């Protein structure tokens, strides 16, 4: 077990390193010269100015050297200056990561609260009208694009009752209650999709457990159906459930570019989206690496949790 975790922990920085190299190459082929964009009109007739900006961004150096200059600071958590706004990236990224983390936590909470009961009920009532209704509901959940649900959540109340969700974001230090209330709607929109996945996995793994021998034994010895379902069936269907929750958590904590933008939430997703359009390659690089690292760690945590839930699994 310990060697397995150790081996995985060694692999994480390796993968993150490869991700950073690929991102580095990709952002360099983004069209448009960030130096010209930054100087605006002043850069039109001043080749030396453009040259100076390019030098300040190390763009005049060969690629391997550029990567090394970025890497030796990044490994200490310093992602340098934004290529478009010349602000420090790391402090902003830290602030935005906290917001995305809060949004993600609330979303996962909703996802489990909505998805698991739907899946359990669907499995227990399988083949009946309730099951069909809930299954159709979960297909709807994973089919309807969340950027459309988010759009409807924003526009319909405004069309009908002239009520719009707040356009200005409240930070946790300004007003904690208002801050979390603001996160509820986007979290619900994100949870709608994620809980559909959770409900489907819960249902199918519960159905598989329902037909297994130990459940028949539990019934045969006269246990109440509720105990059979929760102590014997549900516990045995936890592993696929954990996988899918972990996967969804990884996706959501990576920051949802579109949802954060629609609800004007200053998270990592919004930052990444804007940076790509601004050709701010320094920020794109930083955010991608952080998101990849978060995703890898969550996968690792899920895998380690397996052994804890199911003592039969030994790594």
């Amino acid at each position, binding site marked *: 077990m310990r060697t397995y975790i150790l081996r995985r922990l060694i*692999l994480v920085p390796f*993968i*993150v390193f*490869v*991700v950073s190299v*690929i*991102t580095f190459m*990709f*952002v360099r*082929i*983004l*069209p448009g010269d960030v130096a010209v964009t930054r100087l605006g009109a002043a850069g039109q007739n001043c080749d030396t100015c453009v040259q100076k900006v390019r030098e300040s961004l190390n763009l005049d150096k060969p690629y391997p050297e550029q990567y090394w200059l970025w890497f030796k600071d990044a490994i200490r958590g310093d992602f340098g200056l934004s290529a478009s706004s010349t602000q420090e990236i790391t402090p902003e990224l830290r602030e935005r990561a906290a917001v995305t983390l809060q949004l993600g936590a609330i979303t996962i909470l909703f996802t489990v609260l909505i998805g698991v009961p739907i899946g359990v009920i669907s499995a227990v009532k*399988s*083949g009946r009208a309730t099951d*069909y209704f809930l299954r*159709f509901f979960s*297909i*709807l959940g*994973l*089919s*309807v*694009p969340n*950027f*459309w649900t988010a*759009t*409807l959540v*924003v*526009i*319909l109340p*405004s*069309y009908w009752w002239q009520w*719009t969700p707040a356009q200005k974001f409240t930070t946790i230090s300004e007003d904690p209650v208002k801050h979390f209330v603001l996160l509820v709607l986007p979290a619900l929109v994100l949870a709608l999709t994620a809980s559909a996945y959770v409900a489907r996995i819960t249902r*199918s793994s519960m*159905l*598989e457990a*329902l*037909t297994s021998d130990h459940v028949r034994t539990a019934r045969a010895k006269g246990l109440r159906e509720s105990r059979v379902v929760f102590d014997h069936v549900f516990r045995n269907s936890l592993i696929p459930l954990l996988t899918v929750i972990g996967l969804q958590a990884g*996706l959501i904590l*990576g*920051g*949802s*570019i*579109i949802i954060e933008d629609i609800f004007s939430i200053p998270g990592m997703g919004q930052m*990444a*989206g804007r940076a*790509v*359009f601004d*050709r701010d390659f320094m920020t*794109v690089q930083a*955010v*991608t690496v952080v*998101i*990849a690292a978060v*995703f*890898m760690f969550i996968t690792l945590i899920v895998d380690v949790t397996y052994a804890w839930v199911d003592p039969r699994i030994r790594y």
Partner: protein
Amino acid sequence: MAIEVPAVSVVEPQLGPSGLGRRMRSVRRFIRRQPLGTAGILIIVVLAVLAIFAPFLRTSDPNEFGDDVIVSPSADHWFGTNRNGQDIWSRVVYGARPSLAVGLMTVAAALVGGTILGLTAGYLGGLADLVISRVFEVLNSFPAVLFGLVVGVALGPGLGTVILAISIVFTPAIGRILRSGVIAERNRQYVEAARVIGAAEGRVMFRHVLPNITPLIIVLASTTLPAAILTEAALSFLGVGLPLDQASWGKDLGGQTRSYFTLAPWLAIFPGVALSLTVVAFNLLGDALRDELDPRLRNTAFRS
């Protein structure tokens, strides 16, 4: 001298009348057992008709700027018009084209890539497995939309860009599942038999193992398709998907049109309904196919 060893098919041999009659019977059986899947197929047929016959079904040119700007749904404009006076019904009809085309082509590309990589990794194991699995992990840890966004901005909007970006995103997802499917097949007797008579590794992989994981591939194709359609819509929503003159549901939901949505909700409702309905239909079909084809899940259909 290699002797032809027929691969054992997981589909049980069907007795009784052959040809058309048998096929009709299995169609009827599918309709009876999978009413939701049948509904999905019907919706897909309607969509395909919309996409193919779009020039005949439109009421006006979807890209033509009209004088009726932001008109609510009426007899002239069934779904209303947008800020450029473009007819929303015609745009919705034409929007079916890129959605289906991108969906089908990305799934085809991701299937070819995922099958070759997954089969190689799962069957050969060892170094090949190690390398391919790491490639999957790297590709998988890129956030899908961010990856598509960077590729889209780098290569510029276009059908090729979208297909490339989305198929790269879905290749590892397909490859990983196929790899585990192949590992389960690898130690079966028919594989051993083929190797004993001296079939080359490549031949065993593609002529013996591949036919046996075909049901899994079909299921994966049907579950990836709706996801690919959603990703195309998301990229078009962000403005990096298809070129400007191409009507697309995702594009009509994003960009500058958004500021008119509170004034004219029909601009948001119709493309969104079309997109959702398409994805629902493919998901319903995918579920039905999985019930019918995945032998592991088939048992769970019999319930206590």
